[in-house]
């Protein structure tokens, strides 16, 4: 469980994280999404105490990270930047970290196996490819058998097999009841593993929602209908939760809140001829872009600011 309250980080004039407030719950994979420079990495560094918040706080399992007796057992973190000495072998790197907590040698060998590094564990970590480096970082994150696993852009530099491995790993960690917090700037990647999403832009919280809700908020699924008598179709479709739009003089309508099947049946019932009936799904990518485009715009215009605030309140 990660609990951020009014978490803020400023570097001089620049505000990297601005009053973030969220809770990451155990048992699910929570995606941490935002464009580059949104403050994801800074937030994660504050979680493990590498950066001190300018104001606000973030706690892990009820305490500040640094107050725990065995921090590696609370949070295992993979940070975006490389956090190894290139001259040390993978095995010695993990062993040195294990020694600080009294973690047995057996566990070091275990995580080496889990990460698939058995063949190269004795080689200097500096000779590793990007993907190998990521695997070593994940091995280090799992070392303390932590309740919370926090990974910053874990799929960066991994080959398809590695990406699949990460996906399965994240899902199984969450199934074991752990808190899994994963950042990414790729919505498509998150959609495959995350149940819950925390979306940030320019250091601010844009949405704290589930994948399904995010799509619905972004407009949901729209059905496009072309008909001989748009005015009458509009009347017969009208109902609670149904929204019909269309331009005057056009045969085309956009309907939300009804499925294509329902529209087709209603039209047949009333004897209205349809020329076209097609469902258009809003992709997660689009929903994400809509959210973050607002974040980019909020400095430019006053209407933009209002949009961001209203989205924040919705969340």
């Amino acid at each position, binding site marked *: 469980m990660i609990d951020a309250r009014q978490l803020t980080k400023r570097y001089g004039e620049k505000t990297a994280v601005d009053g973030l407030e969220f809770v990451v719950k155990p048992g699910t994979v929570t995606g941490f999404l935002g464009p580059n420079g949104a403050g994801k990495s800074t937030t994660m560094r504050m979680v493990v105490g590498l950066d001190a918040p300018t104001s606000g706080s973030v706690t892990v399992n009820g305490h500040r*990270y640094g107050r*725990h007796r065995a921090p590696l057992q609370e949070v295992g973190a993979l940070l975006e930047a*490389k956090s190894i000495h290139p001259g040390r072998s993978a095995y*010695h790197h993990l062993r040195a970290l294990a020694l600080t907590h009294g973690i047995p040698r057996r566990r070091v060998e275990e995580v080496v196996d889990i990460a698939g590094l058995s063949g190269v564990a004795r080689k200097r970590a500096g000779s590793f490819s990007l993907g190998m480096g990521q695997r070593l970082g994940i091995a280090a994150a799992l070392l303390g058998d932590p309740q919370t696993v926090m990974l910053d852009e874990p799929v960066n530099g991994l080959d398809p097999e590695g990406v699949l491995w990460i996906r399965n790993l994240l899902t199984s960690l969450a199934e074991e009841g752990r808190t899994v917090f994963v950042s990414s700037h790729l919505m498509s990647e998150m959609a495959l593993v995350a149940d819950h999403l925390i979306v940030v832009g320019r250091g601010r919280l844009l949405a704290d929602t589930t994948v399904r809700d995010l799509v619905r908020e972004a407009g949901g699924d729209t059905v496009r209908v072309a008909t001989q008598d748009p005015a009458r179709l509009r009347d017969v479709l009208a109902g609670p939760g149904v929204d019909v739009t269309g331009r005057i003089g056009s045969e085309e309508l956009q309907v939300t809140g009804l499925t294509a099947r329902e529209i087709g049946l209603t039209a047949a019932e009333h004897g209205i001829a349809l020329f076209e009936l097609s469902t258009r799904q809003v992709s997660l990518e689009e929903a994400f872009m809509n959210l973050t485009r607002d974040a980019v715009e909020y400095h430019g215009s006053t209407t933009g600011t209002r949009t961001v605030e209203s989205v924040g309140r919705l969340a």
Partner: protein
Amino acid sequence: MSTLTAATEAAPTAPARPAYRVTGRRVLASEWAKLWSLRSTWITLGLGLLFLVAFGLIAAGRYKSGLGSGRMDRDFARSTAVSLSLFGTNFAQLALGFLGVLVTAGEYSTGMIRSTLAAVPRRLPVLWSKAAVLGLVALVIGTIGVFVAFLFGSRIVAGTPAGMDFSHAGVLRSLLGAGLYLGLVGVIGTALGSLLRSVAGGISVLVAALMLIPGLVTLLPSSWQDDISPCLPSNAGESMFALTHDATSLPPGAGLLVLLGWTALALSGAAYRLLRSDV
């Protein structure tokens, strides 16, 4: 999370999770393992030892051959077996101080520090452990080096005016003082590396403090010079291992205290920055 904790509490006889804990001794063990798992450690320590022994023996050899030819400058002519054997400390202190800088600043330049401080978020135990490990290793290597240098150096100059053996008054104190000085230089290097977070910066300040500033002080008016000069780290250190002392140098005990003061100062600066700055 709460369910996991509750389960552990309900069944204390079969804890689901092992009870790990960070302790000072464990951080020390980790830093010890880190030091020896890098090739650079072996190289720098090897060089330090080589400088101590080789330069000590070269100095002793030159003294002996110079004596035979009768052409020798007066300072060199007043050498003792101790001063000749300790000739290498000037160079060895750079190797050992350099290793100290590498141990701390190297973690910043590579990014390793993020892993280190995520494992030990209280931070200060890391600095104390690094300083202790490096201090101990530099002390042992330095002491071995000077004893070996004296063992063979004193044989080379035996029978000459510089000749001395271990039983001569002050010899043991000088040799142990030299080892202690090298150990403290290692600690100062560690502190500088941690304070400046840059290998190049740490080494520059170390070289300046040990070698350049003593030269610059000679430009000061002589009344100031007499007050400042003995208290510089290198001169305070020299009075720890010099066999004889005159009015311009501190007695060995005072030299040790002054050098300990410098070490404490560097360590406090490093501790302050470690606690206050993000990494």
